[in-house]
């Protein structure tokens, strides 16, 4: 069974760090958000109290911002500056292209049986959306989080009442991010039929060639045409590694679904 390389170790490491820190921020943030409920109390007790949850939330937030900075540096290093404007418009780039809109339309038609499966290249439009949504989310959540990090200090530069607005923006953006990841990202990534029960591509870094030929035919055709297919082919990862990935992945998905279900079931307390 041939496999094709999809993510580099650095990209997988970025995803792993982002995933762990995002789930940590979700748990500590939800503990603060659901402060009036039994569940909020339980989550806060995991960190040793509401105050401790806030302190850790702030530290991990700074860590995420630092990670975002490192990711920006990584992009700057990885860009092919010799062929600069052209190199970032190619099909390997995550920048949105005109084809994405037409592919999204064709994909929607496919869902109701009106069209064939679109010929996706390396990145689908939903994956590009996810990538840019994370960047937007980190900018909004990180920016508002920095203002709320030391409110006494930040109010020297902005009026204090702006913190009211900033706190609400932080809260709504966090709800949006969590709901998007827990419902949409997890479902498309792992729970739909073709990926069920789990897609290990983000952990292993490689994906089955036949599956890719079916899902992303343009990418495989392009690699074959350029003669890079052999170069991109890799071996299977060891079984023990895959088992470890499965266990880790199931724990993470279970944890995210637990947060989603409890967040929704306690939502009434939030407004009451």
């Amino acid at each position, binding site marked *: 069974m041939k496999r094709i390389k999809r993510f580099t170790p650095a990209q997988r490491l970025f995803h792993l760090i982002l995933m762990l820190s995002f789930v940590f921020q979700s748990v500590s943030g939800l503990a603060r958000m659901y402060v009036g409920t039994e569940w909020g109390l339980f989550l806060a007790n995991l960190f040793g109290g509401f105050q401790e949850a806030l302190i850790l939330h702030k530290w991990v937030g700074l860590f995420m911002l630092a990670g975002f900075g490192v990711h920006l540096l990584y992009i700057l290093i990885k860009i092919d500056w010799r062929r600069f404007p052209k190199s970032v418009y190619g099909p390997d780039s995550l920048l949105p292209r005109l084809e994405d809109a037409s592919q999204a339309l064709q994909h929607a038609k496919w869902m109701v049986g009106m069209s064939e499966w679109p010929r996706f290249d390396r990145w689908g439009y*939903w994956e590009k959306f996810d990538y840019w949504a994370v960047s937007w989310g980190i900018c909004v959540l990180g920016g508002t989080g920095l203002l709320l990090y030391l409110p*006494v200090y930040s*109010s020297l530069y902005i009026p*204090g009442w702006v913190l009211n*607005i900033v706190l609400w923006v932080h809260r*709504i953006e966090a709800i*949006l991010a969590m709901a998007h990841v827990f419902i*949409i990202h997890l479902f*498309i990534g792992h729970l739909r039929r073709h990926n069920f029960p789990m897609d290990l591509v983000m952990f292993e870094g490689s994906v089955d060639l036949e599956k890719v030929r079916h899902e992303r035919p343009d990418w495989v055709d392009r690699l074959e045409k350029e003669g890079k297919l052999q170069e991109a082919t890799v071996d299977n990862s060891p079984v023990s590694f895959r088992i470890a990935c499965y266990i880790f992945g199931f724990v993470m998905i279970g944890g995210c679904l637990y947060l989603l279900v409890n967040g929704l079931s306690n939502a009434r307390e939030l407004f009451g």
Partner: protein
Amino acid sequence: MKKFWAMIYRDAQKTNRRFLICLIGAILFAIHGIVYTAPAFAQKEVTSSSYRQQERERRSRIYEKYEYKRYTHQPFVQRKTPRTELITLAPTAEKVRFRKYMADSHWGLRFYKYRTCIRCHPKQARNLHRVRAKITCRQCHGEEPIAGNSHYNSSMQPRRRYILVCAKCHEGSSPSFATYMIHEPIPIAKTTQKAFPLLFYCVWAMVAIAVGTFAAFLPHTFLWGLREFLPDSILAGFKDFLFKKRKQDEKD
């Protein structure tokens, strides 16, 4: 006066004798209501006016300096407030329009001693200081008498709030910091558009972004999952059905 009665008598003669009887009955009923019923249920309250006078002297720490106007008003003054319940006010307290300028902003409220803050200010109870940090009203607003926020000597006066109140916990707070709205309005409420417009528009913009994202991606995800789950034959049949029907329509 004679002319008045003569006019009524003439009218009654002209129109109907029953009118006169009804008028006299109504006047007698009104007199009965004013003279008999009202003092009867307010008697206990009237006797407590001296108690209130003593209370006022104790609060102001000025004893027997002023003579107070004798109690000549209606004993029960009920004023409807925007809150959930009626608050009974003393007759002179009724004249107060702007309580935020008073040294004792709750002056004249009946049964004030026996109420909790939240009973009359339920909306103010929903704030992060109380919910998250379990701070009580008194920790910021102080002991009795609680001065109105705009009273010169109040610790809540905007010009010294950041020193006397905020800095108790937030070390180094500034006048700008003190403008943070503890009792913020509900951001999506229509009334907030006037009270705190920037909060209103920012929160609605964020809500619009969130709703837009889910409006696009929830059906997208659901349909995708359904399409992969259903066998192709069902959708092929659906497609045939659609196109056959369209062809038939064209023929017709």
